[in-house]
């Protein structure tokens, strides 16, 4: 047998046994200029709610939890590519329903104890048990035994088995192409049982994980101090000795302090009122890193309410909105959107141009649909700037085709409530509540916000659009687990979103850009400052130059 044949035979065998084991190539080359040491200061307006990985679910604590804890899977810094985390490698069975993870050896929790497969099982049981009240419990729905956990009839996931201290097997009740992404969510972080039991509900204030940083001080309402985990299992990381988070700082105050050299990154970003000023100042502009984010701002059209039950009306509205003008209103901090998926998301359809802005045609379409004089409706919007201004622009665009929309500007919680109540909000502008992906996969933009599962009381599918055929197509796409067939899977997803645009339950308006401002002394590649998963920055890999 020639060498070539051997190789072919081995790979054929490998494919028949299992889909993939991760190659080491999918990793990140740290910056050769990086210098260890130093402390950086990050500011936030609001208190950090919790650092419990089963509970924390806002963009402020997400990146902090990522640096304190690890899961089986992780992302290559600055990208949306998966890489192994606490798992050194894994195998997927040919039917896509069994995942076997081989853990790294010698990984220690911050309390000094070695992490084992038992901890992985405990952590997954903890996040899915109803008593934990985890907002992320639903992500684990594909693990066998999840339903019994959710209804309280089991205390442990039957699908998760410890094979030996370094191997854990997870069986799914259905093939789930997103499962590795789920294993990279903070909710899947591995936590030590003894610390969770010691602190109880206060574990979120006393987090103990395996991550690059450990929490060493937390003065409520003032600041948190993360210090370097000297025993971190990724050699040479992190670079920084510590990260200080100061809370209770208005974004405008944070910017002033950055200009004086007291702050390294204002966590809440550049305040809108100062945006133009900063970007027009060449020195300050150099300190701003621009990137995309997995976010789409959209208007929902409630398909259960007249006249939005008529698809022609929804298409007409799509053609009436001047997206360029709305982008201008927010100082160009976004890109006009053509479809639900943001451009940096796999599965995005590049060649689709979206509905053209054409008020005359929109008016004609309305007339054809039986509304020659337009109609009256309501537009719900969150009451913080710039959203009411954007709503006014939408209102004017609608008025141009004869649609009189009354603006209902309410607090965030009230808009969310109205959106999830049947036949209440005919139109909602999503600003301030817009969907940001939990993980970089097209499926994450479907289920809760466009699928039938979300079109329920209290759900997030505010257009109440439910298309059973698309649900089936989505399920089919997510059952394609084979990495070699990912192209096929993404094509299916692209098709789902194109069909959604045909039915037009949304007006996709824009994809917001991310602007991270940093002090001049901060080093590391720009990708780290617009990391799609760690907002504002991946703390493990950045460094200071002085």
């Amino acid at each position, binding site marked *: 047998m020639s060498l070539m044949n051997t190789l072919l035979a081995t790979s054929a065998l490998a494919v028949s046994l299992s889909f993939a084991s991760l190659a080491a190539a999918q990793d990140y080359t740290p910056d050769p200029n990086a210098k260890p040491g130093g402390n950086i200061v990050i500011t936030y307006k*609001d*208190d950090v*709610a*919790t650092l*419990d990985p089963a*509970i924390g*679910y806002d963009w402020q604590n997400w990146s902090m939890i990522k640096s304190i804890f690890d899961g089986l899977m992780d992302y290559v810094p600055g990208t949306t590519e998966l890489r192994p985390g606490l798992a050194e490698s894994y195998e997927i069975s040919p039917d896509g329903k069994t995942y076997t993870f081989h853990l790294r050896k010698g990984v220690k929790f911050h309390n000094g104890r070695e992490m084992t497969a038992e901890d992985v099982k405990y952590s997954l049981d903890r996040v899915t048990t*109803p*008593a934990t*009240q*985890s*907002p*992320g*419990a*639903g*992500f684990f*729905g594909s693990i066998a035994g999840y339903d019994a956990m*959710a*209804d309280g009839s089991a205390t442990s996931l039957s699908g998760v088995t410890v094979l030996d201290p370094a191997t854990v097997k997870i069986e799914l009740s259905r093939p789930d192409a997103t499962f590795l992404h789920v294993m990279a969510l903070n909710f899947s972080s591995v936590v030590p049982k003894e610390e969770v039991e010691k602190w109880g*509900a*206060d574990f*979120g*204030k006393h987090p103990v994980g395996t991550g690059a940083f450990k929490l060493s001080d937390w*003065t*409520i*309402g*003032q600041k948190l101090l993360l210090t370097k985990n000297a025993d971190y299992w990724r050699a040479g990381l992190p670079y920084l000795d510590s990260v200080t988070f*100061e*809370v*209770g*700082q*208005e974004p*405008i*105050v944070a910017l*002033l*302090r950055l200009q*004086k050299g*007291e702050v390294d990154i204002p966590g809440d970003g550049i305040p809108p009122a100062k945006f133009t000023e900063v970007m027009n100042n060449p020195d300050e502009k150099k300190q701003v890193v621009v990137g995309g984010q997995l976010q789409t701002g959209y208007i929902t059209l409630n398909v259960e309410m007249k006249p939005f039950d008529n698809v022609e009306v929804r298409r007409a509205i799509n053609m009436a909105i001047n997206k360029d003008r709305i982008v201008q209103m927010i100082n160009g901090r976004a890109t006009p959107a053509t479809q639900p998926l943001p451009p940096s998301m796999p599965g995005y359809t590049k060649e689709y141009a979206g509905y053209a802005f054409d008020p005359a045609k929109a008016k004609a379409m309305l007339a054809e649909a039986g509304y020659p004089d337009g109609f009256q409706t309501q537009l719900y919007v969150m009451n913080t700037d710039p959203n009411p201004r954007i709503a006014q622009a939408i209102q004017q665009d609608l008025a141009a085709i004869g649609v009189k929309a009354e603006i209902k500007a309410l*607090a*965030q*919680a*009230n808009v*969310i*409530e*109205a959106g*999830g109540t049947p036949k209440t909000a005919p139109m909602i502008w999503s600003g301030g509540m817009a*969907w940001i992906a*939990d993980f970089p996969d097209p499926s994450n933009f479907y289920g*809760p916000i466009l699928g039938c*599962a979300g079109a*329920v*009381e*209290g*759900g*997030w599918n505010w257009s109440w659009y439910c298309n059973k055929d698309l649900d089936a197509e989505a399920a089919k796409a997510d059952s394609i687990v084979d990495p070699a067939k990912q192209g096929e899977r993404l094509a299916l997803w692209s098709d789902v979103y194109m069909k959604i645009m045909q039915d037009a339950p949304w007006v996709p308006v824009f994809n917001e850009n991310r602007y991270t401002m940093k002090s001049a002394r901060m080093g590391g590649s720009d990708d780290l400052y617009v990391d799609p998963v760690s907002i504002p920055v991946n703390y493990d890999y950045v460094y200071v130059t002085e």
Partner: protein
Amino acid sequence: MLAYVFRRLVQSALILLGVSFITFLLLYVLPADPVRQIAGRSATPETVENIRRQLGLDQPFIVQYGRYLAGLFHGDMGRSYLQKTEVAALIMARLPATLLLMLGAIVAELAIGLSLGVLAAVRRGGALDQSLMIASFVAVSAPQFVVGLLLLYVFAVKLGWFPIGGYGHLSNLVLPAMTLGIMGSGWYSRMMRSSMIDVLRSDYIRTARAKGLGRARVLALHAMPNAILPIIAMIGIDIGIFMSGIVVVESVFGWPGIGQLAWQAIQRVDIPIIMGVTLVSACAIVLGNLLADLVTPFIDPRIKLR
């Protein structure tokens, strides 16, 4: 006197009970579901229902309120919905900062208000008096958000005399205390002015001057102590006014007090924290008023408490 205090304390307790009932009711009828905030956007309906049941939010209003009160009588203010931390711990961690800020504000408003009031009274009717009284009018009506940002910009950013927000040093306290105190100082300067004018007209001042005492000495030792007394009694009432101001001022200056806590909790519909902060501030207001009433007879013996 003791009977009076006892009666007032019972009244205060009833007022607090009323405050707790009304706040709880308002939060109950609010068209915003705290469970949605906790469950987040990816939660399944079962997760939402499970959380609602565990927090007892599926119970009727009267049961929820009863449970809250029962907890309160055992000294338990509950746990934050989102942070899971005990509300009492969160408030206690932040209360010292708020009390310090109030103390600073009282010092600031008295220092500014009283001195300007005396000045205006002495120069009664003159240009200085009139401009001071216009200034005091502006001070009383200026929005604290604007005053705070203005002070921050001028004295911290441009002049660099004080740090830009923050907490921990006396220099951090000056600007927020001034912001909070400026409104009160407008008030106090007007009261001090009229109080001084009354005193300066009285016979004993004329006697003091007639026997040859210097003008400054008469002002400082004879007139001012008598003019200040009725004003001291007002400080208790200020506590209530400050309580409404701290939410804004603490947010602007990043002062880690209970006002900031309340503001964040309101945005997140974190009911146990909103209830806790409301009750603590109501306590402060009730006690402040009680204190003001108790102090009055010592200052002016003509007033008797019944």
